[in-house]
């Protein structure tokens, strides 16, 4: 089937530990103007807007309302996804498939520097059974890490190699917050936060924003010289309670990716995809997600990384941008992956370009330990 929706504009900010030098609305206005200029559309051309942001990060109730002016939403329909930006892109696609919009702007913003990571992620959990025990995204991630690593014999050094690859590749990404050469020893020697997760295994917290302009098939063909088509998309939720899930199993991601691969006509992702950008907030997650996405067998994520198959120049580069380890604007992470995927298949990814990339995967998660999973395949 011919793809019905295309990305015709994409933009991201530099990710920084503190963008306190400008107001949120300035950051968002700039990134929106860039995406619209990239798409060659004006505000009048936008039929609807979908934003992604989270009140607790923004310190305001219904915090998308502060963005109305700067996302061009006055006298237009806007809806907000209170979660990952790739989820907002799904909503954006639906506005077009539903026939209510021909051009939809998708915007995601977060100021990680403003809020308190521990409290905000602690409040994700059940106040009756879990919150008071101190559970947060880090300690929950540690449970998942250990479960996965024990089950498949993954070592802490295997995870450290994810950090090294991502920090190294991030040196090619001008939008990255952290980028440098690092060593396994350095990661191993960084302070233990929650066994087996150490400080360097964790994505930093960043400020940043992303914007994407989506268009219907007709509009994309009429307006864009370089439309990037959404070839497949799948999303899936696991249960909220960690204790109800197989933490290393990841059925939700398997289902979401199978749906996306089916739509895109992909049967062997390792061979048929050219690049993948995955949302891994911890080093172990990149290994886990690559397995669940079917790039290798279960327990082989570390092996394909060590062979260099997921490095720039390998069979299927994973996170040539550096991924979230290089910059993590929390709820913006998934839309950042889509922007990177689009740049790759356009051939506009600069020094991090995967040569000849034609099909790319963007992955996002929402909730704890990948409860919600989004997979999108884009191509030209």
């Amino acid at each position, binding site marked *: 089937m011919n793809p019905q929706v295309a990305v015709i504009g994409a933009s991201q900010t530099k990710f920084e530990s503190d*963008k*306190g*030098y*400008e*107001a*949120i*609305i*300035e950051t968002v*206005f700039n990134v929106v103007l860039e995406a619209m200029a990239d798409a060659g559309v004006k*505000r009048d051309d936008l039929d609807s807007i979908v934003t992604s942001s989270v009140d*607790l990060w923004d*310190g305001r109730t219904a915090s998308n309302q502060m963005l*109305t*002016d*700067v996302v*061009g939403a*006055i006298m237009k329909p806007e809806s907000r996804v209170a979660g990952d930006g790739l989820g907002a892109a799904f909503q954006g696609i639906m506005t077009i498939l539903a026939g209510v919009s021909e051009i939809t702007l998708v915007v995601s913003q977060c*100021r990680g*520097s*403003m*809020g*308190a990571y521990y*409290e*905000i992620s602690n*409040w994700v959990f059940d*106040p*009756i059974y879990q*919150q008071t025990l101190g559970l947060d995204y880090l300690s929950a991630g540690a449970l998942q890490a250990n479960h996965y690593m024990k089950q498949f014999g993954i070592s802490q050094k295997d995870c450290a190699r994810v950090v090294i690859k991502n920090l190294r590749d991030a040196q090619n990404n001008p939008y990255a917050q952290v980028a440098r050469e690092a060593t396994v020893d350095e990661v191993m020697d960084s302070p233990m936060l929650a066994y087996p997760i150490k400080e360097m295994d964790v994505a930093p917290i960043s400020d940043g924003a992303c914007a994407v302009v989506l268009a219907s098939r007709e509009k994309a063909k009429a307006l864009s010289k370089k439309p990037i088509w959404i070839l497949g998309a799948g999303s899936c939720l696991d249960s909220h309670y960690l204790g109800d899930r197989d933490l290393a199993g990841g059925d939700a991601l398997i289902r979401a990716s199978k749906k996306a691969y089916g739509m895109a006509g992909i049967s062997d992702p390792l061979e048929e995809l050219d690049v993948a950008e995955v949302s891994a907030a911890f080093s172990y997650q990149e290994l886990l997600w690559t397995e669940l996405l079917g790039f290798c067998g279960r327990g082989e994520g570390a092996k394909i990384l060590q062979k260099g198959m997921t490095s720039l120049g390998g069979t299927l580069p994973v996170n040539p941008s550096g991924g979230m380890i290089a910059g993590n604007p929390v709820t913006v992470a998934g839309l950042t992956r889509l922007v990177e995927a689009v740049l790759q298949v356009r051939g506009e990814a600069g020094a991090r370009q995967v040569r000849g990339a034609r099909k790319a995967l963007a992955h996002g998660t929402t909730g704890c330990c990948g409860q919600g999973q989004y997979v999108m395949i884009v191509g030209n």
Partner: protein
Amino acid sequence: MRREVQQEELLRVPVHMKLHYRFPAGAHYERFFKEMKETGRIMGVRCPECRRVLVPPRPVCGECFARTEEWVQVGPKGTVVAYTSICFSFIDLTTGKPRPIPYGAGLIQLDGAYSAINHILEEGDPGKLYIGMRVEAVLKEKREGNIGDILYFKGIEE
């Protein structure tokens, strides 16, 4: 139909949420407050397209989707465009104390401005407040660079 509950009281778990934010104001708000603190002048910005003066100043005119850069002085006199008299108290975040009731609250269109700003009115009696009432900003002696530098708007005879 509601089920009869045998227990005296079902469990309710208290949840206390306490968070601190440092909200980045941005250059426009910073200049607005700096100007008011240092010179006592209330400033707005003019949109380059619709020419309206926005108060408080902000970096973007949402209607025109245009950046605003031209600064103009407005007020300190203005006109009440909406008002109410508040009879419940709230904790004033700038003083930490409850504000005495009743007090007037309104939207005031400062002379020279298009948009009206929310602020406190000295007059709290709804019988004495009216739309179109002329008012003037009363500023603090020792200004600190926040919205409380305007104490309130008082009615004036012209």
